[in-house]
Structures are given as structure tokens and as C-alpha cells.
């Protein structure tokens, strides 16, 4: 699976949303499914998918799908 698909999958599983809404503009708290609780699960899913440990400042910074792509690239994962 390509990295972008892995990342989309992490969003899909943790937020329980359809593929079609997982686009760069999808933002934290812009939909009911992406709340503070599912955000914790999302971080865990991304870490598990790419075998990385996301720093606290990046957990706070991860405010959209586009931002998630940018943040995982900091850990050597190109999406």
C-alpha cells in the first residue's frame, strides 16, 4: 500500500468516515467525527501505520489532512 493510502486508511479507521471526504482541506473539528477523542485515536493509528512516534507539538499541530501529510514527512514518510 502506498503511503498516501496508508494515511487515508488511518483517517478512515479512526474517524469512521468515507474515503471521499478525506482530502487536504479536511480539518480538525470541521466534521463531528473528528473531535478531540477521535484525534487521539487518529494519532495512534498514524503512528501504528508508519511505525513512528509523533511528538506532542506535532500532535497539536496536526489540524488537517494536508498538515498530516506534512507532519509524517518530518518523520521520513513521503505522502
Amino acid at each position, binding site marked *: 500500500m502506498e503511503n498516501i493510502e496508508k494515511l487515508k486508511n488511518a483517517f478512515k479507521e479512526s474517524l469512521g468516515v468515507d474515503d471521499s471526504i478525506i482530502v487536504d482541506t479536511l480539518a480538525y473539528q470541521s466534521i463531528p467525527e473528528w473531535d*478531540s*477523542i477521535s484525534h487521539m485515536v487518529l494519532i*495512534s493509528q498514524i503512528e501504528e501505520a508508519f511505525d513512528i512516534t509523533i511528538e506532542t507539538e506535532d500532535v497539536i499541530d496536526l489540524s488537517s489532512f494536508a498538515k498530516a501529510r506534512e507532519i509524517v514527512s518530518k518523520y521520513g514518510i513521503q505522502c
Partner: protein
Amino acid sequence: MESNANMLLKNQTCLITGASRGIGLAISTLFAQNGARVILTGRDNTRLNDVITTLPVFSLPHLSFTLDVTREAEIVQLFKHLHSENIYINCLVNNAGIMEDSTLQMVKPELIHRIYGTNVFGPIMASQYALKSLIKHRGGSIINLSSIIGTNGNSGQSIYGSSKSAIIGFTKSLSKELAPLNIRVNAIAPGFIDTDMTKGMNPRFYEKNLNAIGMKRIGTPLDVARVALFLASDLSEYVTGQTIGVDGGMII
């Protein structure tokens, strides 16, 4: 290897801070006896390694790490290391704590920082980093050690007492936050317990404390560890946000 079929913490990995003596040692021992793999942390790793040799092993080997909970970098490093080894804890016991008494007028800022650093910021930071493990398991237990001084207050202990009250507030709010993820957060408020902290006490003060206990005996670290075992295990699977006193009916 003995059978661990009926043990309360079978296949559980539990991290205990301040594990080398007193209540932390009793919790580590009881958890290991109940099938857990324990990760002992404390400032004296030699002592922790000695403790490990006394613990029964029912699953994977126990581990020990030097950790001063006032140093965030050490907490980060510990959890990074555990995760890199694919070790994800099921239970965190925030036991490490210090008690220093002084009337408020005599308190130096350094003392406030020292007590809050260990008793409040330490447990908060450890919980934050432990959370990743617990979320991965979609469940687990955080146990914070408060004190009867945190629930009731005491003269000469405004700093220590307020630090232990803070941890109750932390427990209550965090329990609400993590309940949807099936992660439980509870606190224990021990009374007068027979540990190194109380052994060096002025005999008159010791006697006064003893007389304030309804059951007329000092508590043991095992008394506290048994409640920690309850909170770590599935026996308390519907219990969260609570502070359980272990004080023999002490009036303070």
C-alpha cells in the same frame, strides 16, 4: 514456570514509578505475583535491579529503568524506548512522590517547585506519554497515588496537601476525557502507612497519627497495593474518576 491462569493481571504490562521501596515496591510485587510483567522505574536502578530478582516471573521478563519523574526528557526517552521495543503498557501507576512539611510562611519557592515537580507534573507527563500505549490497547488503567492529606488537608502541609489535591482533580478530569476510549483513571488516598517516609517521624507525631486511626494500627504498603491491584484489574472495569481512601478510618 507456574500457571497464571487465574491471576488478575495475566498478560498485562504495568509500569510503576517510584518502585524501589515502600508502596511502589508493594504494588510491583503484588502485580508480579498476579501475573503482570512489571516495568519498575525509580532514581536508583541498582535497587530496582535487586527488586527484580525477588519477583516471580509468569510471562515476559520484568524490566527496570532509571527515571526521575521531574525530568520530562527522561519520561520521553523511556516511552520512546519502550515503543521501539514494541512494549505497550496496559497500566500506569503514578506512585513516585515526595513529602516535605513546612508552614507556608517558611516555604521557599524551591520547595514548592520540588514537591509539585514530583507529585503533580511528573504524573501528568507520565500519563501523557503512557496514553499512546493505552489508546493502542483501546483500554487500560492509570492509577494516581494521592494522600489523605490531599482529601482532608493538614496543618504544615499546605504545599504537599495541595499537590495531592491537584492529582485528584487531574484524575477526575482525565477520567472523563478518557472514558470514551475505555481507559480508566483513578486515585488512591493512603492514610498513615508504614514506609520510610513515616519511619523517620518524630515519636510524638507518630503516636498522634496512630491515635487518629479508627482501626488503631498503621497501614501497610500491602494494604495500598491491594487497592491498586483492584484498580489495575478487570474487577474495577466500570470504576473511573474515583479516589479510594486506604486509611483504616483515620480522622484528620
